[in-house]
């Protein structure tokens, strides 16, 4: 399998008045051509920062080390000019709030055309025509009329479609969607997830879906990577991971969700660590029901356990004790 996005030992540190904050602490990640990868974690897990760093969108207070390659091009340490050539052409990113991504004083069609002409030799008329096609691709009715409207004339769901159209304008290899449906109502969320799936199927673009919603992951993702305290704690095929989570944090997340016929929810004890002073070793050990002394030793890396990879030193032992789930 060929990885279109390849992240190795990514580390992001923010200089704060209280000291250095390690938001991402050595993340490896591969996005394969044509797949939908879910990146899951709670607030502060580093899931968004990982991709903001990859896109070169972090402020100057952040120091980024490691390697991020898109289609073989190294992005860490790349010049602003090189980054501009990659963003929107090889890799696009969309966010939770579509309104802040759109320019309120320009027509929607013109904003899509601008993205096309930034990366391709294309005349105004051709760009305008292509903009309408892109609006159609994302399921906007009467695309030719809608292209002449302004963002405020669109509903929240329709705006998110416009943003997807802009992101997809140059057929990037990777589309990173950061909580794209979190601000939307559930019936509109269902529409947007369908749009993302359809766009993915029609263009073959790989999609990274950053979300806290495990239901959304179950619906659309092929593979999942679970993050906690700036590290990857588990990754694997979506079905296997939901059926037999191998990391206690993943298991904890799944057990805390309400499900049909479940009498009592099982929350994870404690709360996420202060990232200015994360625990030594496995950062989850202070909340983990299975923690032993060795967990405070070295920071565990992902290792194969059954069908997936887990960063728990007791993963094999716990899996055989549980006999599946």
């Amino acid at each position: 399998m060929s990885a279109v996005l390849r992240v190795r030992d990514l580390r992001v540190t923010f200089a704060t008045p209280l000291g250095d904050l390690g938001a991402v602490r050595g993340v490896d990640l591969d996005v394969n051509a044509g797949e939908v990868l879910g990146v899951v974690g709670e607030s502060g897990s580093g899931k968004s920062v990982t991709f903001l760093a990859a896109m070169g969108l972090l402020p100057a207070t952040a120091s980024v080390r490691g390697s991020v390659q898109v289609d073989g091009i190294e992005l860490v340490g790349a010049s602003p000019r090189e980054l501009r050539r990659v963003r929107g052409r090889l890799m696009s990113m969309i966010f939770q709030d579509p309104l802040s991504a759109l320019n309120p004083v320009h027509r929607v069609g013109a904003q899509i055309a601008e993205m096309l002409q930034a990366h391709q030799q294309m005349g105004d008329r051709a760009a305008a025509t292509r903009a309408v096609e892109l609006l159609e691709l994302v399921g906007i009715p009467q695309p030719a009329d809608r292209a002449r409207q302004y963002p405020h004339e669109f509903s929240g769901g329709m705006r998110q479609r416009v943003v997807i159209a802009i992101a997809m304008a140059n057929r990037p290899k990777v589309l990173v969607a950061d909580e794209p449906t979190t601000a939307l109502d559930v019936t509109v969320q269902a529409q947007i997830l369908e749009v993302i799936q359809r766009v993915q199927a029609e263009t073959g673009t790989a999609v990274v879906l950053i979300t806290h919603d495990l239901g959304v992951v179950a619906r659309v993702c092929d593979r999942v990577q679970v993050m906690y305290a700036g590290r990857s704690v588990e990754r694997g095929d979506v079905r296997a991971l939901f059926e037999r989570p191998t990391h206690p944090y993943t298991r904890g997340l799944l057990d805390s969700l309400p499900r049909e016929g479940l009498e009592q929810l099982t929350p994870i004890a404690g709360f996420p660590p202060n990232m200015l002073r994360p625990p030594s070793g496995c950062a989850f050990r202070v909340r983990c029901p299975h923690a032993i002394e060795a967990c405070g030793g070295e920071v565990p890396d992902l290792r194969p356990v059954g069908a997936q990879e887990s960063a728990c030193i007791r993963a094999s032992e716990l899996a055989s004790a549980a006999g599946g789930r």
Partner: protein
Amino acid sequence: MNAPLLRVEGLVKHFETKLSSGVRRRRRVVQAVSGVSLEVAAGETLGLVGESGSGKTTVARCLLRLIEPTAGRVRFDGRDLASLGAEELRHLRRRMQIVFQDPFASLDPKMTVGASIAEPLVVQGVPGDHDDKVVHLLRLVGLSPDHARRFPHEFSGGQRQRIGVARALALDPSLVVLDEPVSALDVSIQAGVVNLFADLQRRLGMSFVFIAHDLSVVRHIAHRVAVMYLGKIVEIGATAAVYGRPSHPYTTALLSAVPVPDPARERARTRIVLEGDVPSPVDPPSGCRFRTRCWKATDVCAVEEPPLTVRASGQASACHHPEG
């Protein structure tokens, strides 16, 4: 069944807005709630679900008379809230409390947690120093007594929400309205707060009105559920009936839209994806308000508003072409 603790009849709430378009100013009326009737029994949890603009939060505010309803009646323990004078209302408010979504905005950053929790007791003129009560309340919501001396910024989101709950319980209310109480919390934290509500109800026997857009949380905690769409209740009944055999097409669509955390089941499901968005409550559709997005709509739906009608599986729904 005994007389319900809370009875709402024909509740209507309109808001006037001034929309300035160019030089002309037009007055427009937002019909936020259009004739809602419901009951909550003592010790019961009623879930109120719906998308943004469905009017669920407006209903909650009218229940406590935090805003004045345009029409309709809210009876709490047999007494009509609208008939009460300021003093009587203040007294009755001891027994009805509300917890809001944002645990960051609802606590005064300059007050200690203990002072925040004791504030309702002070406001209501409960005599004595309230230290013992504060300690008792902190323990009740799973916090430690020495947290009373600390300030809100020292707490995580989940802990702050527990502080908000402790404050709401200070006056031993018989009804607590929970307006999206876990929506701002991470899943692993959310579970603990949901468990806390269930536990408090078992121990203290109060009623909850639980407002949420997250249908799976409501299913978990509510005995009965009301589904709202554009200012009206479209379906109401026992949680098991509404979720198990939805009668209104909107309920069916809503349940179908919610992703369940099970990849195998998710991929096997047939999904109803509604077209478009919720129409504006300024100019709601005639007849059944859901008809513009409904795949079952016929001519009658545009002219005749369907009344809430009790169905075979026990719940009531407002539809000319009910499911099942």
